Each structure stands twice: as structure tokens, then as C-alpha cells.
């Protein structure tokens, strides 16, 4: 029923020849109604896919260099790059570090902001409005703008408690948790607001404590949305580069983003490209799979969060 470019085509519908006038007309109508949509979709898919095809081709390229990689592999196919990836780089370490940091930070940050969002959504207390507004304000000051101060603060922390200082996953994870409330609380509050209040009120009447209402009624109801928020937080954390690069300088402590960028630095840029592409594919597989699986929730989750704030 909707709109756009097709309109012009319908306007000019005059059959070409008398014989297949009807057939031609139908074709044009089909194009005006449906065909152009496929055309747009196909163009979009092409745009989306060509860099990915290039990555796959680079990963399978037996020469492994950027200069020898074509869009479609012509010089044979091999899995050598994948072998080299594990043999010559810290990829396995980086992958585990990334999973640990991003997984831990995503889980904890979703949990922390769910707690806060529950209080903001269901309780009325002094300072609620001020709290919500200051979260909005703090969120506008992205954590990494304070990177200089963070660097200096963590210098002291490293001296006092090396276990949570530079070059440890825990220090970086704690740092990421600092940004948790600012980013997710508003979104989560939106989800909690959509749940009818009668649910928790009746539970309270039945004698449930506030904690029981939260853990046994609210959390299970928003679980799919929590999963989506957690997934997005996970992906954002995996992709975070700035703070991780300042924090992690030891080879075994690096995350994927820091380590894989190092692969393409300086003189290695051309020769390591195949290995790098192989690493990219391995990094992408888990997220792509989960993404396809949760796609539907993502659509509804983001927009309902957006509309409700």
C-alpha cells in the first residue's frame, strides 16, 4: 500500500503494442506495485554484501596478502590463513579476553540498569526526577571523553591493586560498568513502564516483598528484551577500542579490537590481511548467528524503548 517511486511509473502506463498490450500492462503494474521493491531490496543486499564477500575471499586466499585478494577468489581456496591465525598471533587469547570482558560487562550492566530502572519505574521517592534527569545529562558525557582522567586514576589503582589495574580484564570491566547506568536505564525504564502495574500490585497484596516482585515477576516478563539489550551491550563492548587500547598493552591481555588492529599496523599491513580477514570471520560468526536469532526482538525492543524513552 505504501508509497514512493513507483507512482511515476504507473502514471505513464501506456501499453507498447496492441497484441501483448494486456501482458505488458500487467508487467508494468507488477513492476509498479512489487517489482521496484525487489529492485531496491536487491541493490541494498548488494551494497551490504560486497565488503563481506571481499572478507570471505581474503580469508580463503592462499597467498594471504591484500594485494592478491580479488572480490571473488580466483587463485584457489585454502584454509591456511585460519591455521596461521592461531599459530602466529594471540587470537585465541584475544577472543577469550573479549568474550570474558564483553560478556561480563554486558551481563552486569544489564542487571545493574534493570535494578535502577525498576526503582525508577515502580517507586516514587524524593529525587526521582532529579535522578532521571542527571542520568540523561551524564549519558551525554561519554565516558571516553574522560579518558585522560581515567588513565591517571587507573595509574594509581594499578599501583595499589594490580589485580584490577592496567592489563587486566577486571579493571576494564569495572570501567565499562561505570557507563552502564547512563546508557541503559532509560531504555529499561521504558520496558518496565509497559508492564501493567496491576501485576506487581496484586503480588504485593499477596505478601510478596519488593525483591520477589522484581525477581519473580518483572524480570521474567522483560527477559527477551533484557537479552536484546544485553546483546547490544555485548556488541558495543566487543567493538570498543579507545579505552581498551589505552588499558591493554600486553599481548596476552588484549581484546580482539586492540589485538587485530595491531595485526594490520606498519609493514605487516599487506601481508597479514588474509589472517586478519580470517579473524574477522571467526569473530563475526557468533554475533551474526545470535543476531539473526534475536532480530525480531531487536526491532520491537529498540522501537518500544525509543517511543517510551
Amino acid at each position, binding site marked *: 500500500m*505504501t508509497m514512493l517511486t513507483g507512482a511515476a511509473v504507473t502514471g505513464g502506463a501506456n501499453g507498447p503494442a496492441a497484441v501483448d498490450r494486456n501482458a505488458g500492462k500487467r508487467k508494468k503494474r507488477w513492476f509498479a506495485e512489487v517489482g521496484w521493491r525487489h529492485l531496491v531490496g536487491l541493490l541494498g543486499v548488494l551494497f551490504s554484501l560486497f565488503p563481506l564477500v571481499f572478507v570471505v575471499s581474503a580469508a580463503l586466499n592462499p597467498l594471504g596478502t591484500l594485494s592478491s585478494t580479488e572480490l571473488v577468489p580466483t587463485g584457489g581456496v585454502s584454509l591456511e590463513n585460519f591455521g596461521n591465525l592461531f599459530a602466529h598471533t594471540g587470537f585465541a587469547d584475544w577472543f577469550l579476553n573479549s568474550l570474558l570482558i564483553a560478556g561480563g560487562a554486558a551481563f552486569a550492566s544489564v542487571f545493574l540498569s534493570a535494578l535502577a530502572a525498576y526503582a525508577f519505574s515502580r517507586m516514587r521517592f524524593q529525587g526521582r526526577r532529579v535522578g532521571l534527569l542527571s542520568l540523561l545529562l551524564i549519558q551525554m558525557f561519554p565516558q571516553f571523553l574522560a579518558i585522560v582522567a581515567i588513565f591517571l586514576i587507573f595509574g594509581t589503582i594499578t599501583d595499589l591493586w594490580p589485580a584490577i589495574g592496567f592489563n587486566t580484564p577486571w579493571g576494564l570491566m569495572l570501567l565499562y560498568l561505570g557507563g552502564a*547506568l547512563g546508557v541503559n536505564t532509560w531504555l529499561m525504564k521504558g520496558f518496565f513502564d509497559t508492564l501493567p502495574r496491576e501485576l506487581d500490585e496484586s503480588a504485593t497484596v499477596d505478601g510478596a516483598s519488593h525483591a520477589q516482585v522484581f525477581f519473580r515477576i518483572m524480570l521474567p516478563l522483560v527477559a527477551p528484551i533484557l537479552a536484546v539489550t544485553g546483546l547490544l551491550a555485548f556488541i558495543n563492548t566487543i567493538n570498543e577500542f579507545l579505552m581498551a587500547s589505552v588499558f591493554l598493552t600486553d599481548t596476552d591481555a588484549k581484546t580482539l579490537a586492540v589485538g587485530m588492529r595491531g595485526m594490520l599496523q606498519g609493514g605487516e599491513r599487506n601481508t597479514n590481511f588474509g589472517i586478519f580477514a580470517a579473524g574477522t570471520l571467526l569473530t563475526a560468526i557468533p554475533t551474526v548467528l545470535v543476531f539473526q536469532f534475536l532480530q525480531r526482538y531487536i526491532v520491537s525492543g529498540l522501537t518500544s524503548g525509543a517511543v517510551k524513552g
Partner: protein
Amino acid sequence: MSTPLSGPGPAQQAPGRGPVRTGSPRTSRTARNHAPITAAGLAAKVILLGLVAGIAIWAAFPLVAAEKWVGLAVLVLTTAALFYLYLGRRHVPAKYLIPGTLFLIAFQVVPVLYTASTAFTNFGDGHRGSKDDAIVAIQSSSVKQVPGSTQYPLSVATKGDPATGALVFLITKPGTDTVSVGDAGGLRPLDPGAATVGPGGKVTAADGYTVLNFGQASARSKDITDLVVPTAGGALRSSGLSRAYEGKAVRAYEAGCDCVKDSDSGKTWTADGEVGAFVAADGERLAQGWKVNVGLSNFTRVLTDERISGPFLATLIWNFAFAIGSTGGTFILGMLIALALHSPRMRGTNLYRMLLILPYAMPSFAMLLVWRDMFNTDFGLINNLFGLSVDWFGQDWSARAAVILVQLWLGYPYMFLVATGALQAIPRELTEATSVDGASRWQSFRAVTLPLLLVALSPLLISSFAFNFNNFNAIYLTTEGAPFPADNPSNGATDLLITYTYRLAFGGQAAQFGFAAAISLFIFAIVAVVSAVSFRRTRQQEEVYA
């Protein structure tokens, strides 16, 4: 530190046992507070509070050892407050808000305030510590080996990892077994018997220290050369990896004139409290200065210093163009495709959708690097495919177009997803009604669909703008700010304010933390104003915190 909360647990109380609401909100709150305590809830509470206590004790020891009493007081008060909060029955909202808030304060609010205070200082390389630190550094770095300097057998050791830990010197007084340990803070004797001295007087082992072997030491020879241990008569420095000498400081501070004198050349440098450095009559500054408050000069520098203000303004304009271009471009492209696929007669939309959102699911840091190499002049895919040899990142406009194109690719699937979601939420009757009324598709799009889409998506557009305004990765992982004008290596044509700030602070040249912090505050002000104005204009605010 951890995340205590009052306990979850199975509902074990009989239904109906809880007091019935009597209408007034006050009674209902008391009723809530007095819900029965469950065993599981209690257990969770005990375990979590025990964890808090354990972490607090673990954290306290280094604080005591380092004599950081303020830090210890904060730790004790925080822990006590947590116990008070979670053992009591009152302050229910606080129980939910405190865990996240603690992290927020420790790792976001404090750094932000620290940034704000740094912005008013000249903090950076050469201006790190106090004036006394600067004097010690000046004196000890001027230490020279003079005839008759005492020589010591030297071992290098560390308390931490041999490859990264802070180094100390272990030296033996010639002819005796007295071992001393020295670092930048000075020289202290070790307890007799705490160290083993090998033949030749070299220390081979010491309690609590790892003595570096030759390989480890030579890997850190630069750190060893840089380590200067101040002593009463001058300072200790290494000479090679196994000898140290006690030399004399050529430059000395004189309190009378508040200046530093060089006894070789007789030149003097007088302290200047305004700039935090010792300055000679001919204007020469000593490299080691100290941190002073410089008031607003970091902020006014941006506006008045011509070498900075011109490029800064250009960077600011490009920063807006980039944020608007990326947000607008991804939104328009994403919306067009969403509109095209949004039709009851369309088949295969799921397949399209699956393929279209792939860029969003890929790790963006890696794809940015892939795009960077696709734009490579000599062997990049883009030049190969079209038979060109354009140096994409070498010219201002092609580099800018390239980074926006990359952002478009990375960002449009997200806009496509949310636009699809919003389109499905628009009641079909609305658009059908317009077509019954004889509106063309374009009219119905302009009058009905687009406004509704914008209402639903404007908060996302605003946050997307704020994100792109500070999209560090998009620039740093592709062009790194290039191309740079020949006369200005500190901001390039594609630099955003955030990459510019990063270069000021960590860019290899002398770090200017104070100035970088001032720019951070500028960025914050800009993003805050833009977001506040647009939130107000879309009137989402009332709805949001209703």
C-alpha cells in the same frame, strides 16, 4: 564494589498472609516493607554482604600500606553505608539504585570531575608533579660522572613482572656486605641477611624482589638508564647493566633566588609560577616543570591562538557535517529500503532482511579496518575494481566522502531495522484513508507516514547523532585523521574533535592533558546543547519522564 541486593527467593509465605492494602499510599508502603523474610532471601543477603566485606578488607590492605588515609576512609564509609542500607528495612528505592550508582560515581562521575579540574591546569608531559618533584628531577637528571665517583656493583630487580614491573637498584657498598635498595624515591638499606651477595659483590637474590637476569635486564636497558636514585651527595645512575656510580648534580636549586644554577656554565633559570617552569633570561625553559593552575587559558587558547583556532573551527564544522551526514544518510537509506520492503504483496522480506542487516552484526572495528584497506591506493579493492589509482585518504574531500560512505554502510542496517519496526506500528487504516481521499503515494508519505516515523524515531536519531559526533572508531580506525596539512600535524581534514583530543593526550608528541581536557569539555557542552534543544523540539521529554 559488588552488587548486593535484598534477596530473591521463592515465595514461601502463605497467600493472603500479607496485610491488605488500605488505600493510603503510606500504609501500602509499610505493608511492602514488612513482607516476610524468606530463607533464600536471607541467605543471598548474607552471602552478598559477606562478599562486600571480603572485597573491602582485600582493598584495605594496600591502602594502609600506602598510607592513603583518605582512600581508606572512603572505603570504610562506603562499606558501612552498604551494610546499613541492606540490613535495614527502609530506603527501598536506594537498595535498587545504589549498586549501579556506585560504579557510576567511581568510574564516570569522578573521572568527569577530574577532567573538569584538569582543564584548568597545564598538566601534561613536563608538568606532571609538584615543584619539588621538578627540582629533584632537574637535579638528578643533571648528574654526571666526575673523577672520583664511587662505583658500585649493581643488580636490577623488581617486585612485579620482570618485563613490566617498576625497577629498583640493588647495590652493595664496596668492601662490605651492606645491601641497599634504591628507586626514584631514594636509597634505603636492606636488612642484613635479606639479600644474598655473590662473588664480586653483585646481589643475586633478595627477599621480596625478583632479580633480573642479563636477558631481562638488557630488554629493559632504557628503563635502567633512565632510573636515577637521588642520594645526599648527588644521585646514583647505572653505567651499563652491572655497575652503578654515584655522580654529582651539575644543576642545583637555590632557595634564595628561587632558581636553578648550572655550576658548569653558570647559567640560571628562575622559577615562573605562572607557567610552572624554570625560565632563563633568554627565554629557555627547563624541560621539567610542575603543574600549576592556568585558569581559563586552555579555553581561551582554542579561541585566540591562531595556530589552534583556525584548524579547530574547521574540525568543528567537519565534525557537525560528519555527524549530520552519517545520521541523515543512514536514516534516509534505511528508511527507503524499509519502505520498499514494507508491503503485504512483497515476498521474501525475511530473506532480504537477513542479508541486509549483516553489516550491523559484523564486528565494526574489524570492518572499519577492512574498509580502510579497500580504499588502499596501491592494492585496495575499490581502485582494483574500477581500475583507478586514487589516493582516497590523500585528499580532503575524497577522504571525507570515504569515511561517510563507510559510516553509511555500517549504520544503515540499524536504521532499516528500527524504521521497519516503526512502520509496522503505523496503523494501516491511516494510509488507506489517505488513498481513499485521493492522495498520491508521495502525498500520503509526506503527510502521514514520514511524520509518524519521525515522532517514533527522533529519540533514536538524536542519540545516533550524539554517537556519531564522537565516533572515535570511524575515524581512528580508517583515516586516523588524515590527510594532514603540511604545516599542522595535529589536526587533519577528517579529524573529529574526539580524535583530535586523543592525539593531544596520547599522540606521541608531548602529552597536553590539560588542553585535551579543555577540548573534552567543549565537546560535552556541544553535545549537551544539541541534544537538549532537539529533545525539547521533539517534545519527547514530557512523555519520557511522565
